[in-house]
């Protein structure tokens, strides 16, 4: 998920997860589970369209207060409306993969809506009741960037449970990946501060060092056990970051073309203090 710089609101836009192909109905649940899966697919699509229409109202030159007003207006912002519908489906479909997925969707909406206690409850319910579901891969994906709403320690704990207890290789890989990624970014000791502030504050602390060691072991495990999955491949990029992009390391050189087509290297700037700003407006 990208942090939304354009709107400048200081929070991330909710990324609507791509639809899973309708899950295989668990044996015994028969046609009903398939019906719920289809209903979920339909509802997700409707929500995506409603969200798209909602975001089209935002203009780049809109004052922040007006954007905030739009967000908090339940008539305009479709999130609360759809959250109730996902929740209703999750209850009716209890026990199916569609229900797991619907709860995961509700969890992300609860996070975004500052109803974080509810978000925590849902995660607990999912871990207690849907550990066998392949849809739990989405919970791991959601917490990769959504951990700050759930809380760092709860997110880590959820991922540890998922990675140890899920019967599905992809869920294990997803949970391992999220656990490693948040360990790498966040030292264990600090809860509730912004990422940048945490990274500064704890760069050299023993807790930070221990987190980094654990993250490395998990990424290496992903590379070895899940090399074919996207998680195994992304793990390589994180290992590069651990080896070359930490505070105190010499930044790896790069060569690029500038806005005039002129090639240059980072090392051309030795002797100068350099700020590298990865940015874009999109």
């Amino acid at each position, binding site marked *: 998920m*990208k*942090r939304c*710089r354009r709107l400048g609101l200081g929070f991330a836009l909710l990324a609507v997860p791509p639809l899973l192909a309708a899950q295989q109905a668990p044996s015994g649940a028969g046609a009903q589970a398939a019906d719920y899966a289809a209903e979920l697919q339909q509802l997700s699509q409707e929500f995506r369209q409603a969200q798209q229409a909602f975001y089209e109202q935002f203009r780049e030159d809109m004052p922040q207060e007006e954007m905030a007003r739009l967000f908090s207006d339940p008539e305009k912002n479709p999130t609360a409306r759809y959250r109730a519908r996902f929740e209703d489906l999750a209850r009716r479909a209890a026990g199916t993969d569609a229900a797991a997925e619907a709860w995961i969707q509700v969890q992300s909406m609860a996070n975004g809506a500052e109803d974080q206690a509810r978000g925590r409850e849902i995660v607990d319910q999912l871990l207690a009741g849907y550990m066998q579901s392949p849809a739990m891969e989405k919970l791991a994906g959601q917490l990769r*960037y959504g951990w700050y709403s759930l809380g760092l320690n709860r997110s880590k704990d959820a991922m540890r449970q998922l990675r140890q207890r899920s019967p599905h290789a992809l869920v294990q890989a997803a949970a391992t990946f999220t656990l490693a990624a948040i360990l790498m970014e966040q030292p264990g000791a600090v809860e509730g501060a912004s*990422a*940048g502030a945490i*990274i*500064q504050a704890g760069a050299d602390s023993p807790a930070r060092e221990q987190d980094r060691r654990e993250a490395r072991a998990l990424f290496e495990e992903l590379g070895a056990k899940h090399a074919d999955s996207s998680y195994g491949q992304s793990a390589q*990029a*994180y290992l*590069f*970051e651990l080896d070359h*992009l*930490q*505070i*105190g*390391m*010499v*930044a*790896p050189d*790069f060569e*690029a*073309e*500038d*806005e*005039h*087509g002129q090639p*240059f290297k*980072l*090392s051309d*700037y*030795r*002797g*100068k*203090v*350099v*700020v*590298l*700003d*990865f*940015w*874009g*407006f*999109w």
Partner: protein
Amino acid sequence: MIPHEKEMVERLQDEPFALIGINSDGDRESLQKILKDNGIAWRQAVDGSTNGPLATRWNVHGWPTIYILDHKGVIRFRDLRDEAMERAVMELLAEIRP
């Protein structure tokens, strides 16, 4: 972010300091338009997209991501913005001429 960066680039124009943008918006032409429209005059690496080669290699998955390097090329700070960024830069400039 950008207004402060502009001021900072101006304030530090005679110092051994460089702000380098690594832009993920598109090709060189579309970037030139963005720079012109927004009055951005510091050097850019054209990375093409959020999956560009530099963003990929540097494992960037949130924007903006900021690295602050000292005059020896050592990464000293990450993800500081605005006044905090400028304070960090001033600190590193002071290291060059103690």
